[in-house]
C-alpha cells in the first residue's frame, strides 16, 4: 500500500490529519471520548471559553430545521479557571493538537483569556468574533472589518500561540473580512461560523428558540460555506480552516479542494458521534483511490 501523508501545517503547528472538531459541538472532548479515539484527530477545538463563567441563553436553545439546526446556546462555559484546571489536563492525555476557542464581550475580555492561555500548553488559539447568539461582543467584532482587525491586533500582541480568527458568514464581503484579520496579524482564519436564522412554531405562534434568532448549521449550509472558504482562501495568504455542514470525507474534500488546509466537523457529531473518525478514513480512501500521496496536493487544487 502507498504511504499516505495526511499531515497539514497550520501556522507552524503540524496536525497528523486535517480533521478537527468545530467549537461548541464537542465540549472539550470529554463526552465524546466514549465514542471517538481522540488520539486519531488532527486537533480538538474546544467550546468557547471566556474570562468568567457564562450562563448562556434560556431554553429552548436549539431547533431542528430542514437538513440542519438552529442553536442559540449563548456560549455557556465554565470560565477560564476551571477550563485550565480540568479541560486542558484532560486533553493533554491525548496525542492530538489542542485549539482553544476564546470568546469575550470586549477586547479586554479576549485579551485576558489569551494572556491566561499563554501559560498553558495548548497549540493554537481560535478567537470567536462571530457568535450570533450573544448580545455584546461575538459577532459585533466579526461584522466590521476595522473592529475585527483591531481585535486581531490586540490579541496577537499578547498571544503566545498562533492565532486563528473565526469569521462570520453574516457579512456582505467575506474576502474583505479575511483580509482585515490577515492585516491585523492573524496566523490563520477559520470559517464559517453559523448563519443567523429564525424558526417559528406555527402551532404555538412563538419563536422556536427562546433567543428568537439562532445560528444555522448542518449540511443545509455547506454550499454557502464552500463558496466562502473558496473566496477567503483566494483573498489571503494565511491558512484557512473550513467548516460548515461537513459530515463525511467527500464534504471535507470539497472544502480542502476549495482551499482549506484543515476542516472542522460540528453538527454531524450530534447525529454521528464518530463522524470525525469516519471522515478521516474516507479522506484516506479517496487518496488511495486517486493515488494522492500527499494531502497538501489537494489543498486549493480546484481553482
Amino acid at each position: 500500500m502507498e504511504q499516505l501523508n495526511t499531515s497539514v501545517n497550520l501556522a507552524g503547528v503540524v496536525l497528523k490529519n486535517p480533521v478537527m472538531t468545530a467549537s461548541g459541538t464537542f465540549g472539550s472532548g470529554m463526552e465524546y471520548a466514549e465514542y471517538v479515539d481522540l488520539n486519531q484527530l488532527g486537533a480538538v477545538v474546544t467550546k468557547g471559553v471566556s474570562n468568567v463563567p457564562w450562563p448562556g441563553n434560556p431554553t429552548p436553545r436549539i431547533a431542528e430545521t430542514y437538513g440542519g439546526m438552529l442553536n442559540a446556546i449563548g456560549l455557556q462555559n465554565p470560565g477560564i479557571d476551571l477550563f485550565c484546571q480540568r479541560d486542558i489536563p484532560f486533553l493533554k492525555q491525548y496525542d492530538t493538537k489542542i485549539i482553544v476557542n476564546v470568546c469575550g464581550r470586549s477586547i479586554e475580555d479576549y485579551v485576558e483569556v489569551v494572556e491566561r492561555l499563554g501559560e498553558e500548553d495548548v497549540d493554537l488559539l481560535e478567537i470567536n468574533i462571530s457568535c450570533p447568539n450573544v448580545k455584546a461582543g461575538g459577532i459585533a467584532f466579526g461584522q466590521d472589518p476595522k473592529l475585527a482587525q483591531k481585535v486581531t491586533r490586540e490579541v496577537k500582541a499578547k498571544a503566545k500561540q498562533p492565532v486563528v480568527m473565526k469569521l462570520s458568514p453574516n457579512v456582505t464581503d467575506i474576502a474583505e473580512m479575511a483580509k482585515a484579520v490577515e492585516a491585523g496579524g492573524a496566523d490563520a482564519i477559520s470559517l464559517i461560523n453559523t448563519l443567523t436564522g429564525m424558526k417559528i412554531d406555527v402551532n404555538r405562534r412563538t419563536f422556536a428558540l427562546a433567543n428568537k434568532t439562532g445560528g444555522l448549521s448542518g449540511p443545509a449550509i455547506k454550499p454557502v460555506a464552500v463558496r466562502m472558504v473558496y473566496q477567503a482562501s483566494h483573498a489571503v495568504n494565511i491558512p484557512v480552516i473550513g467548516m460548515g455542514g461537513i459530515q463525511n470525507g467527500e464534504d471535507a474534500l470539497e472544502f480542502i479542494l476549495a482551499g482549506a488546509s484543515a476542516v472542522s466537523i460540528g453538527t454531524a457529531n450530534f447525529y454521528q458521534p464518530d463522524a470525525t473518525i469516519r471522515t478521516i478514513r474516507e479522506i484516506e480512501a479517496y487518496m488511495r483511490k486517486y493515488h494522492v500521496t500527499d494531502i497538501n496536493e489537494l489543498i486549493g487544487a480546484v481553482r
Partner: protein
Amino acid sequence: MKKTKEQARVIRQDCLMEGVYSMWIQTQQIARQAKPGQFLSLFMKDQSSLLPRPISICEAEAKTGWIRIVYRVVGRGTRELSGYGTGDTISVLGPLGNGFPLKPKKALLIGGGIGIPPMLELAKSLHGEKQIVVGYRDQQFLVEDLQAHGAVFIATEDGSCGTKGTVMDAIRENNLDAEIIYACGPTPMLRAVKEYAGQHGIECYLSLEERMACGIGACLACVCQSTEIDGHSQVNNKRICKDGPVFLSTEVEL
C-alpha cells in the same frame, strides 16, 4: 471498545390511541444496560431530520434484548417512527442519562401524559410498596401494564375516568402518602409535584425534558436551572441529557 450506535430491529409496533404508539425493538447491548428513567436517542432515516429523537425507555428486557418505547407523534421524526413495522431497522444510541435511583421505600410514581411510559419500567424495578398515579387529558394508555405492578390511580382532565383533574387531585382524593416520589410529565405537573414534596418533606425525583441535540452532554442545548452553582458548568445550569434527566427535586428550579 468505543460506544457506537446500534442497529436495532423492530419487533412490533402498535397504535395505543390516536397519536400514541408503542414499539418494541431488539437491541444487542442497550436492553442489558438499561435502567428505568434512562432514554434512547433514535435516528431517523429521513436525512432532512438530522438530530436524534430522545425517547424514554418504557420497558427493557435484559434476557431478550428487547426494549419498548411509547411515544407521541409530535413532528416529522416521530411520524417517521410511527410508520415502522416488524423487521424494519432503526439506528439507536443508548441507554443515555442517569435514570431513577431505586430505593426500598414506600413509593409514589407519578406520570403525566407522555411522561407515563418510564413509570412502567420503574414500577417493574421497584420492589417495595408502590402507588402509581397517572394523569391523562381524556383517553388512557398503559393502564393495564401498570396495574400488573402496583395500585393505579387515574386522573383525567375531563373527568371521563378516575379523578377529574390532575394527578395532584388524585393524590389528595385518595389520601395517598409516600416516603419517596418519582415523577415524569409536563413541567406544570412537575412543578406541583415538587411543591407537594417540599411541603411534606418527601424525597422526590423528577425526570425533566428539553430540546436536545447531542444527547450526551457536549452541546449544552438541554440545560435546566439548578438551585446551586453546578460543578461542571460553574453556573446555575445542569445538563438534562447527561446530569439528568432525573434530578432530585430540590436540585432544580422549574
